[in-house]
């Protein structure tokens, strides 16, 4: 260890809403990456901080938690890391971030970690607010009590960040003595001594308090072997160690000890005037006005996602269209050119086209989170959502799904009960997303006359709204069913949510948050989408043996006999080829299954290809029915209206067929991007498969009933 010293790891630890993320962003700037903690879907943010002497340290932002006796899975992760010195993320130094405006509660976790004897700097955050309230801070009293360095600072405006950095340098240069308190702040009751000593001997616990935490949480601590777990369990039985009671005793004793210190360190103002937050909340969380405001905000978010993303989405579409054309002209006509143009470039375009919507949605949601509004929405809707086996936070995801299920599913991470979160993930895609719009437009134009009722309501518009409502009803019904299947009630679920003071958003935080989520989407979902696009391209470009050449020849023969324009010729060839391809065979293969729904093999192909993404439906129908440009939705419905069954001579598309197709598209899981994200978020293929099957079931039987009733 004489050469270059390995970069030390500094972990940021603190309660939720302690301003940890702002401090992380200030310390690391743009030098940060996001990865996953092994085995769990908790994001691990790592960055590098530059110290005054030019050296660098690695900074890890651990999820926020209130105590070493935790609730949710990401809180448990922190306890796993901090109780295992062999863990790859075990820090050499902790910067504990505390909200000075609420010091007492933030001291609980700090004193627990100090008793684990991990070196610590206490960052007393948000002193800008303390100062603007004309309150005083007595830093020496706090550092006397904790016997570690205390730095009053502000992550929001950057005050004293340099002091924090030079303290970190001091730790590197002078060693850890000044950063550890020798004697524990909390002494467990004497009658536990024997028990804790046994655990200490049994495990590699570094001190008595470490043993105590192992004793409390041995059941889920992942670094204990099964054998140790069993031994601890029998020790607990022998010594009559009461988990919850001892947790409570510890917490009460700590509060009693540091309570007077906390009051001395931050002197509260005498007059408690009604704060801005109180005034805002008397309207925002009002029993009647509150929910109305919520829906107004959500309506605005929804509108913004549509209105602001249209232009950039067109650009991306055009860019990829242009790139495809460019490559097509550049390379010789060969299979690999087709693969690049129709498989890879088209597939990439299909992923990247969602970026504007995702960016806008996440920007708006992260602003709502930064300001503190989100916890109010959770407070207002928790009860209603619980009745459906969901959580207060689910409502944000459900509304977001109106734009796109992908960011909505990513937003479920804030739900701490795993079963409530899973339920939210499973039902969110039932809410009609923007990709269903082109399909709805074509089919509604076909079945619903363009009339007005009562002189103001557009009948087609009403049909459109009806489909959205059907999606919402479907999602809530499915949630209710999963509530019982998953036995959601069994998962311990708490509300107990802090309602932080309203603050203006920090743009840097919002920006970094959005950037992180968009990148995750592009990389993780992108890999899967690309592979499936290539498979779909193959299926629709190739056929068994020489079926494709025969189709080509037939088409040529037909075209020699009939006079058609160039465009018509090209379309005719394309439709003959898709019929002969594997996709065409698949369509014919599934025809018996979809016949009761009123679909023929051509629609079968469209169903198969729109598994990639729903909006592919219009394009596929256009190809099959040889109608020029897919953008011309009116032509597609005209052509469909004229289609006649080759044997019976009946019309293929009756209103019953179209309605049946609509119902199918409302419920079916036809979006591989969403499935890819569900796989990522649930860390297993099980849940995307369950989702695909139950939504397919709803779609199939929904269509079946509709068609059989209508025809």
């Amino acid at each position, binding site marked *: 260890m004489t050469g270059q010293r390995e970069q030390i790891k500094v972990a940021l630890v603190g309660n939720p809403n302690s301003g940890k993320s702002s401090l992380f962003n200030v310390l690391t700037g743009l030098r940060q990456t996001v990865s996953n903690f092994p085995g769990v879907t908790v994001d691990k943010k790592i960055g590098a901080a530059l110290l005054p002497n030019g050296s660098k340290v690695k900074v890890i932002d651990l999820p926020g938690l*209130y*105590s070493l*006796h935790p*609730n949710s899975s990401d809180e448990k992760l922190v306890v796993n890391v901090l109780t295992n010195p062999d863990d790859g993320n075990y820090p050499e130094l902790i910067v504990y971030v505390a909200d000075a*405006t*609420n010091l*007492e*509660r933030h001291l*609980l976790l700090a004193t627990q970690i100090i008793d684990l004897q991990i070196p610590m700097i206490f960052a007393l955050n948000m002193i800008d607010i303390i100062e603007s309230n004309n309150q005083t801070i007595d830093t020496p009293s706090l550092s006397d009590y904790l016997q570690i360095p205390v730095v009053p600072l502000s992550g929001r405006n950057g005050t004293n960040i340099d002091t924090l950095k030079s303290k970190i340098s001091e730790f590197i240069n002078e060693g850890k003595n000044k950063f550890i308190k020798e004697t524990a702040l909390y002494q467990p009751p004497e009658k536990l001594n024997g028990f804790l000593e046994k655990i200490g001997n049994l495990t590699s616990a570094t001190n008595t308090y470490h043993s105590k935490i192992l004793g409390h949480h041995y059941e889920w601590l992942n670094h204990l072997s099964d054998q140790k777990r069993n031994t601890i369990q029998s020790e607990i039985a022998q010594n009559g160690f009461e988990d*919850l*009671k001892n*947790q*409570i005793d510890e*917490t*009460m004793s700590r*509060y009693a000890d540091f309570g007077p210190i906390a009051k001395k360190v931050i002197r*509260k103002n005498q007059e408690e005037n009604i704060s801005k*937050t*109180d005034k805002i*909340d*008397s309207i925002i*969380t*009002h*029993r*009647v006005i*509150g*929910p109305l405001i919520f829906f107004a905000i959500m309506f605005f978010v929804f509108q913004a996602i549509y209105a602001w993303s249209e232009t950039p989405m067109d650009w991306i579409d055009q860019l990829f269209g242009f790139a495809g054309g460019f490559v097509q002209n550049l390379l010789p006509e060969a299979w690999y050119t087709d693969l690049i143009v129709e498989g890879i470039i088209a597939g990439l375009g299909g992923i990247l086209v969602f970026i504007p919507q995702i960016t806008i949605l996440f920007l708006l949601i992260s602003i709502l989170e930064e300001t503190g509004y989100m*916890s109010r929405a*959770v*407070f*207002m*809707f*928790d*009860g*209603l959502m*619980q009745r459906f086996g969901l959580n207060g936070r689910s409502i944000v995801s459900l509304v977001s799904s109106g734009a796109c299920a992908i960011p909505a599913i990513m937003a479920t991470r804030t739900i701490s009960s795993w079963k409530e979160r899973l339920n939210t993930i499973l039902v969110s895609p039932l809410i009609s997303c923007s990709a269903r719009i082109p399909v709805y437009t074509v089919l509604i134009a076909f079945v619903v006359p363009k009339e007005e009722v009562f002189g103001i309501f557009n009948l087609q518009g009403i049909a459109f709204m009806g489909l959205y409502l059907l999606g919402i009803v479907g999602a809530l019904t499915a949630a209710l069913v999963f509530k019982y299947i998953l036995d959601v009630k069994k998962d*311990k679920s*708490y*509300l*107990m*949510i*802090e*309602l*932080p003071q309203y603050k203006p958003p920090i743009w840097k935080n919002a920006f970094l948050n959005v950037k992180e989520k968009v990148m995750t989407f592009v990389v993780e979902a992108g890999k899967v989408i690309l592979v499936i696009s290539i498979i779909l391209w193959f299926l629709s470009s190739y056929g068994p043996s020489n079926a494709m050449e025969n189709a080509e020849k037939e088409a040529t023969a037909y075209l020699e006999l009939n006079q058609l324009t160039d465009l018509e010729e090209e379309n005719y060839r394309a439709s003959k080829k898709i019929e002969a391809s594997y996709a065409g065979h698949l369509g014919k293969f599934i025809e018996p299954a979809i016949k009761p729904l009123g679909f023929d093999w051509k629609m079968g192909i469209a169903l198969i290809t729109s598994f990639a993404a729903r909006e592919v439906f219009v394009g596929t129908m256009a190809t099959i029915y040889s109608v020029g440009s897919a953008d011309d939705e009116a032509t597609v419905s005209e052509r469909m209206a004229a289609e006649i069954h080759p044997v019976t001579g009946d019309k293929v598309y009756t209103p019953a067929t179209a309605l049946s197709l609509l119902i199918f598209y409302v419920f079916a899981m036809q979006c591989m991007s969403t499935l890819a994200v569900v796989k990522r978020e649930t860390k297993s293929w099980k849940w995307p498969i369950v989702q695909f099957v139950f939504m397919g079931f709803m779609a199939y039987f929904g269509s079946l009933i509709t068609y059989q009733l209508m025809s």
Partner: protein
Amino acid sequence: MRKKTVLDLKVGESGIVKSFDNLDYASKLLTMGILPNSKITVIRKSPFGDALYLQLDGQKMAIRNAEGLAILLED
């Protein structure tokens, strides 16, 4: 006699926490800063009446009715 809990407080009323009658909730509530001798004020109820908006010593938080039922108050 029924014990007085946070649920017995009307909107705008305050009470002093005496103890808890559910160990699991107690351990979480303590962690969130609700301690014996803390003063709790009910600011308002949620739109569907199933949760409470509380003010306690400079911080605001929301809890479910079931969680409030576990907080016993001084008479």
